[in-house]
């Protein structure tokens, strides 16, 4: 049977739940071959109870597709108490026109998530691939490791268009994180690789305990840790295969952890 080349699943939140809903199974790869009725009956967790999706969401399906890459899930309404959106997603597209709760895009390995709102903590936690965009602010632990784990984000790309909280890119191994706004303390703590770019200011201590990787700050830094050694000033340095326009001061550290990471701060802003 011939089917279309694009499927769109629209979820509109009709009934708000103060108890968080969990969306770790509402993924393009799980929905692309399901009928509207099957999607409506998909079981999600509300706290520790199981509920059908259509108890809270109106489901509309447009088009059909053969492969999950061609499936887009669009979520509307007030989803600020919906957790695990796009958790472990491997392909396809999710667009959320709302704020979201914890763990959005955690462990995602492929595909594209676009959040047109703010996000709670642990966004993009342990991500290994794909693209995650947040148009609003994010809270703590963006692109970090899980609590206790020493291996964080290892691939993919995260772009935040506003501000981020504490401990961004904690234990990052690889991948890229771009923050267009400001950052709280300890951005890039325990980094062992990867690239973190902050276009705004950092309150204090970027790169604490970092071993490797690059952190670029285009704004001001409140305080640099003493474990960072000032090396040199470079005009238009090539970092992460891209020239950065302006004069940057290069620091190496964190010596407190025998680190050889690079912290680049744009001239006259410290």
């Amino acid at each position, binding site marked *: 049977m011939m089917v279309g080349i694009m499927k769109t699943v629209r979820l509109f939140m009709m009934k708000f739940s103060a108890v968080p809903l969990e969306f770790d199974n509402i993924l393009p790869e799980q929905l692309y071959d399901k009928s509207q009725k099957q999607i409506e009956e998909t079981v999600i967790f509300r706290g520790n109870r199981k509920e059908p999706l259509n108890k809270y969401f109106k489901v509309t399906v447009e088009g059909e597709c053969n492969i999950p890459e061609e499936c887009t899930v669009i979520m509307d309404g007030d989803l600020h108490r919906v957790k695990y959106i796009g958790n472990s997603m491997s392909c396809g597209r999710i667009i959320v026109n709302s704020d979201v709760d914890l763990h959005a895009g955690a462990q995602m390995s492929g595909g594209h998530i676009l959040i047109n709102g703010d996000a709670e903590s642990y966004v993009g936690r342990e991500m290994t691939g794909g693209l995650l965009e947040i148009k609003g602010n994010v809270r703590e632990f963006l692109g970090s490791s*899980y609590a206790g784990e*020493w291996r964080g984000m290892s691939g993919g790309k995260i772009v935040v268009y506003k501000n981020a909280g504490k401990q961004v890119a904690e234990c990052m191994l690889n991948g890229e994180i771009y923050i267009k706004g400001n950052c709280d303390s300890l951005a890039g703590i325990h980094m062992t690789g990867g690239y973190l770019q902050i276009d705004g200011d950092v309150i204090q201590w970027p790169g604490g305990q970092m071993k490797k990787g690059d952190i670029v700050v285009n704004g001001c830094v409140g305080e640099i840790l003493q474990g960072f050694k000032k090396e040199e000033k470079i005009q238009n340095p090539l970092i992460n295969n891209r020239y950065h326009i302006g004069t940057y001061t290069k620091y190496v550290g964190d010596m407190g952890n025998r680190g050889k990471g690079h912290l680049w701060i744009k001239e006259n802003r410290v």
Partner: protein
Amino acid sequence: MEYILKNGIVFDPANNIDGEQMDILIKDGIIVDNVSSDAKVLDVTGKLVMPGGVDLHSHIAGPKLSVGRLYRPEDIRRGIKVASGDGIEGFEAGFSVPTCPATGYRYTRMGYTTVTEAAVPPLEAKHAHEEISSIPNLDIPTLTLFGNNWFMLKYVRENNLDKLAIFISKWLKLAKGYGIKIVNPCGSEAWGWGKNVNGLDDAEEHWNVTGREVITSLTKVNEMLGLPHSVHVHTNDLGHPGNYETTLETFDCVKGIKKNKNVDRNQILHCTHVQFHAYKGTSWRDVSSGAPELIDYINRSKHMTCDIGQITFDETTTMTADAPMEYDLYKLTGLKWANKDIEVETASGLIPSIYSKKAPVSVLQWAVGLEFFLGIKDPWKMALTTDSPNGGPFIRYPKVISWIMSTEKLNDMLDNEVHPWATRRTSLGSYDREYSWNEIAIITRASPAKILGLTDRGHLGHGAKADVSVYDIDVNDFDTTLSGNSETLEKKLLNSLYTIKDGKILVNHGKIVELVDSKHIWCNVRGLEDREDELIREITPEFNKYYTIKYENYGVNNHYIKPDNRIDIDYDGGYYEDC
């Protein structure tokens, strides 16, 4: 309930049954020679039948496990399995430090019915027994830590073995312990001052007592009391290059001590996780295997046994009362480290460990463990362990079995998978021994039961506990020596066809069908009660001075250990024979 296990291929080394096709009859929880016509027949024609597994050294309950779970949430995320939905199997989580129910489920699925918790400080014994009560389906003896206890050190310094014997007898009752565990004698006590001891004759400076004195004194006391298990020793210098000499001295220091005549075991000393104590060299740069010397000693001697502590190439959690060693490991790896002092009694430490096939030291440790398996001629002198979770989690036992049953598999690994230190720095490549099912039954059942002195298990003789495991392995058709079969073998050993404990079917075709409460196995020495009371009156002032809890709140009350299996021993003042 009565059962007939029909036509299985039975391996029961304690009764010299080596792969005979026969029926096993079960009635009222024991093995019998006759059942009624109502007995339910389980057709296991051609399948592998062995006694229930016995693990004589594992860390499954107690404060260090709780610290491990709290400290490594990333480990808890591994091994997650949802509840079965039928109300029997609950949720499982954790890989190297699983939750308590998961520990019970996994051992039961593997066909194990008895597991020893190998290190419990008396002060934390209540916690350990509470956790044991949360683990289903196992019989669990606990070994009580005495190797750095202040009262023990005092009596050893005074060379007062009579009082030491009374102290041990009383403290086993208080901790509801089964036997004497010694960990880095004097070293863990020295760690209270940030120090360690080096070797057997390095005295801990505040007590002026050596590891040699502790081990020999506690061995003598163990035989005086006639405890079913011998002293269970984690020797000094664990994990240090050059430590094999200390291990040899430890083996030798108790050689002349006579064994109590009333006990069933053959040894007076059990050296645990011997793999970690068998390194030559002066640093990790020039380290090599010291296993051949230790194997030679073990092969020549009758007074000792060992378990291996095999490395399994996993990311795991190390936890031990040898706290200074954990600090050394922290300095070496830089991974997160937890340290805990147990007042008056011992210390403890915890750190994750990543054993990689590409890391030379990990591979050396792996190869040293296998050298012991392949080099010790008499399998009755050893037991299969991974010192779970220190060398790897217990769910890797089937993997270890698949390695030692196939030279082809081992050679494949040596040629293609592991770092060349395995062949350059050890003698592993020179062995061509392959374990038979009979030998596997010895090192996983019969020998650990014998070493522990648990006479009612580890065999399928009439009157034995009806602890039986059946695996979906057609013994006569399945070639364990083929490298290509190793994964299948591992899977089949991980999920038994039937696990029967006390005559109840707990696992049916890999699925847990019944949960029973675990039994707390402990030793009760009779005949010293008056002298124990006298001792307590004497030491209570010191106890209340040095402990932060009162003596009255110290012991494990009976309600912590329901159901229990108390093993009564009548003190006879010592009645000895040669090993």
